[in-house]
């Protein structure tokens, strides 16, 4: 696609509910990232995939957070038993290749509100 596409754009979840956020990266992009952005703050790294391999999940805040990219394209971020502190914008990003010099392109985000 032309850009990184995320769905749903907005999600309201009741505390304790499970949610799944989808990311469709730019076609052909090998690297895929998930970031969490709390209100009024900069994005914080959650996890990184190269193709279908999850190479870094050091930013996932708890074992309630799980991400997958089974075929090396679309990715899903799943949050189990949501808590109020999970309320944030979840940004997906992709880049053509790995390595520090590659430009990372961001989607518009999925806005999660836990009530």
């Amino acid at each position: 696609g032309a850009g990184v596409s995320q769905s749903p754009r907005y999600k309201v979840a009741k505390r304790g509910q499970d949610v799944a956020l989808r990311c469709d990266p730019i076609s052909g992009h090998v690297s895929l990232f998930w970031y969490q952005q709390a209100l009024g703050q900069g994005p914080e790294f959650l996890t990184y995939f190269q193709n279908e391999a999850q190479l870094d999940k050091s930013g996932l805040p708890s074992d309630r957070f799980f991400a997958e990219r089974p075929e090396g394209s679309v990715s899903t971020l799943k949050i189990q038993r949501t808590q109020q502190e999970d309320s944030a914008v979840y940004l997906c990003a992709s880049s053509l290749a790995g390595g520090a010099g590659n430009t990372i392109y961001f989607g518009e985000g999925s806005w999660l509100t836990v009530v």
Partner: protein
Amino acid sequence: AQSVTQPDIHITVSEGASLELRCNYSYGATPYLFWYVQSPGQGLQLLLKYFSGDTLVQGIKGFEAEFKRSQSSFNLRKPSVHWSDAAEYFCAGPLAAGNKLTFGGGTRVLVKP
């Protein structure tokens, strides 16, 4: 610890005036550095990036940034601000191995008519 710092949380500027946003990094080697802009309800759009070579980098929307190793800075500038430049601006860099980005806290720019 490796970090990216944006000292100014908010900046208010009059339309037509110049703008400079500060970014400082803490990293041993020469970093790659990026500036992104985020309009309300939108994702992050890349304005410009520094990899190596010329320390003055030109970007989109009339923005430029200058890398200064001696000051560990990568400040963003625009000579004449338009009302549409009102947004939040983030400096970022892959400060560790790989291309995982570390972001500054952001600077919110308000433009007065």
